[in-house]
């Protein structure tokens, strides 16, 4: 058996329990296994271990709720080309590109080994954003449009290069993350767990609760302290509030991009109401300070629960009116339908995750496939899917998920009995030489945190995966052969994170 089998609720795994096998065995197994759509790789990374380079793979079995861990190793300076899995399963491209960029590992016959994010600790310092050769096509009737290299609104690195034939996009190449933040490295540079929590909250500002929860869950697994069920109910409510707020905000943003004022102002007002609810709970509109490992500083009291229920039902009512309005506006439908299509097969092939994948009909929902928190226990999660994979499907995903989240919050809080919640624990000892991972479904999709501890129980490696990492490629595919003027709504329908890529 080349895998150690565990699941998303189990505690940390001792490193010695994770089999170390030949790359050939893993290659052959994944080559076959990934053809089945129930399997996908949640994380695949390399980390130096004494003189060796150790590779870990977190493989998810969506059908059986299993998480399968395996590893292989090579000498640090060994120059052996590994046969590339990306060549067969393009979904793995981000992982192999990261490994190649950081450790100079060669992947044989990899289709396009372009740098993932130009990190400060990359091997080849000569490769920079300034001399990056964007893909180009020659032709008298073609022209290139460059957008970026810094986003004009959010001031984050993102260089978009379009190759266009008149108004039509032939190809879009996206280069991100080249102002490397080094978040993963920061996790290992401090032992202060409060600082690490704050760092997790800052991974992507729009997913503060999701990333903080993923961090907290990882640490709890390493401490062997499982949070009690009420704390998980609180976290689920916070996660669903975040999902509601972001989906409503994106409904407004999509309306704004097609100059539909009514949808825009109504959604903006509702979004404010949602994040203000979070603020009334924990003092921060984005839920910063709410999620802490092994406890909480902002326990949910009966009054706060009642306030959240009241606000959420009001938001639910008003938002469903907005949804009806959008569905019945021909001018909006003509903009959103049949625009920016990513077919199911394509989404599956490139390994899309989250609501964007579900909009194309791909079954990807950690809440269903690898339940955590209150999902699968207090909540019977019903994963919503669409089939067309166009902008309208992604918008409808948001609309349906907001209403669903509102129902979940109502359902959880209706039977909620406040109990004594412990204060956060930043000191508990972590299990030495262990690996802990945490998977959860943020509003954008699958978030995966993996921590590996050393012999003294310190975090030696911390790996974060934001769903944007996979889905940026889906955006590039969505705009092919669309009009360039439809790029903004395609982009907004995914609403991917720049900083989530730049870790």
């Amino acid at each position, binding site marked *: 058996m080349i895998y150690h089998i565990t699941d998303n609720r189990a505690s940390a795994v001792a490193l010695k329990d994770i089999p170390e096998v030949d790359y050939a065995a893993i290659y052959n197994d994944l080559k076959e296994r990934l053809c089945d759509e129930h399997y996908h790789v949640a994380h695949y990374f390399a980390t130096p271990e004494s003189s060796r380079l150790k590779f870990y793979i977190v493989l998810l079995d969506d059908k059986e709720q299993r998480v399968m861990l395996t590893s292989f190793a090579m000498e640090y300076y060994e120059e052996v080309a590994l046969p590339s899995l990306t060549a067969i399963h393009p979904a793995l491209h981000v992982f192999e590109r990261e490994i190649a960029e950081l450790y100079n590992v060669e992947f044989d016959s990899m289709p396009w080994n372009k740098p993932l994010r130009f990190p400060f600790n990359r091997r080849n310092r000569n490769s920079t954003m300034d001399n990056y050769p964007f893909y180009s096509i020659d032709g008298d009737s073609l*022209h*290139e*449009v*460059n*957008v970026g290299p810094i986003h*004009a*609104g959010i001031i984050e690195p993102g260089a978009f290069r379009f190759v266009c034939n*008149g*108004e039509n996009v032939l190809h879009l190449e996206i280069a991100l993350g080249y102002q490397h933040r080094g978040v993963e490295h920061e996790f290992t540079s401090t032992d202060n767990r409060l600082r690490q929590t704050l760092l997790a909250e800052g991974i992507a500002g729009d997913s503060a609760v999701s990333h903080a929860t993923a961090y907290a869950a990882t640490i709890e697994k390493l401490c062997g302290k499982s949070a009690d069920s009420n704390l998980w109910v609180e976290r689920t409510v916070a996660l669903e509030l975040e999902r509601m707020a972001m989906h409503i905000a994106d409904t407004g943003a999509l*309306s704004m*991009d*097609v*100059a*539909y*004022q*009514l949808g825009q*102002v109504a959604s903006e007002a509702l979004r404010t109401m949602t994040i203000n609810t979070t603020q009334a709970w924990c003092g921060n509109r984005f839920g910063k300070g709410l999620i802490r490992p092994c406890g909480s500083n902002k326990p949910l009291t009966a009054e706060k629960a009642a306030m959240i229920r009241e606000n959420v039902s009001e938001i639910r009512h008003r938002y469903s009116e907005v949804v009806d309005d959008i569905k019945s*506006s021909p*001018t*909006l439908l*003509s*903009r959103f339908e049949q*625009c920016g299509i990513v077919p199911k097969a394509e989404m599956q092939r490139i390994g899309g995750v989250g609501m964007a994948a579900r909009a194309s009909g791909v079954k990807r929902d950690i809440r269903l496939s690898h339940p955590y928190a209150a999902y699968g226990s207090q909540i019977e999660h019903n994963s919503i899917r669409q089939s067309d994979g166009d902008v309208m499907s992604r918008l409808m995903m948001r609309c349906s998920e907001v209403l669903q989240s509102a129902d979940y919050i109502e359902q959880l809080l209706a039977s909620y009995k406040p109990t004594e919640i412990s204060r956060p624990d930043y000191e508990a000892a972590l299990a030495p030489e262990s690996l802990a991972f945490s998977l959860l479904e943020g509003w954008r999709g699958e978030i995966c945190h993996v921590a590996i501890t050393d012999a003294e129980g310190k975090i030696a490696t911390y790996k974060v995966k934001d769903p944007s990492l996979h889905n940026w490629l889906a955006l590039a595919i969505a705009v092919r052969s669309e*009009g*360039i*003027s*439809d*790029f*903004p709504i395609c982009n907004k329908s995914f609403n991917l994170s720049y900083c989530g890529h730049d870790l």
Partner: protein
Amino acid sequence: MGIALNTLLMIVVAIAIPGVINRTRATLAGRKGLPFTQHLRNVGLLLRKGSVYSTTTTALFRIAPAVYLGAAIVAMLFMPVADLYPLISFEGDMICFAYTLALARVAIILAAMDTGSSFEGMGAAREALYGALIEPALMIGFATLAMFCGYTSFADIFAHEQSFNLHLTIVMFLIAYLFITIAFVESGRVPVDDPRTHLELTMIHEVMCLDYSGVDMGMIHIAGWLKTACFSMIAANAIAATCCFHWWFAVPLAILLTGLSIGIVESTQARNKLVRNTTFIVTISALAALIFFIGFLLQADINI
């Protein structure tokens, strides 16, 4: 005296329309919104600023805003306000009016190409295409007026057709509708263009002015207001000619017709997919042709 009042009223219309649009939008959105005169303050601010020029641009780029504004002012001077008389008027001035505005368009398109930016090149291509497509609508609309009234000068057309008759009323209302639709396209409003968008890739008019700043930008804004006022005034004159041909009726009508219709459309509907704009504009031309034939049949008293 009449001429001075005429010019003054045109300026009032030009200034009031953007204010009415903004107030309508704010009211329909349930927001407090901008004050009525906010656009004046913004342009006032721009006019007090200097301009910054890209080093890749030439003199063409610097002249363009002046040509653009100059052409818009000249076009405005052709326009009568109901019973008042415009400053410039001669046989065939409606043709001159149309091509003065075309000159403005050419100037700004050339200036956009001059910057060498890929965004502005795209904007210029779009503006040129839509400008060419809207021209038949404009010319057929003028032709209908000329055929129906027998004059080719704005002042003569409207001044000589004030008696109430059913045929005239039908044609004039259709003409009013046509020119308000043309005003949507010419002033770059939803559903053709979105003056508020921040997305360069979707812009048409705004993207051509990306490199302009300060005084130049202010001049472009003012020229835009004047253009809208001209089309709005044609529509208002057409309606006024059928019922109450006085300047005090035509001026509020011109402001409200365009201000409210643009405000309402911008509040309640999304803009077109860019490829659909072509169909939208060609449809306006088709509508113009239809109005021409209706006018022709009515004038010849042919009953079908």
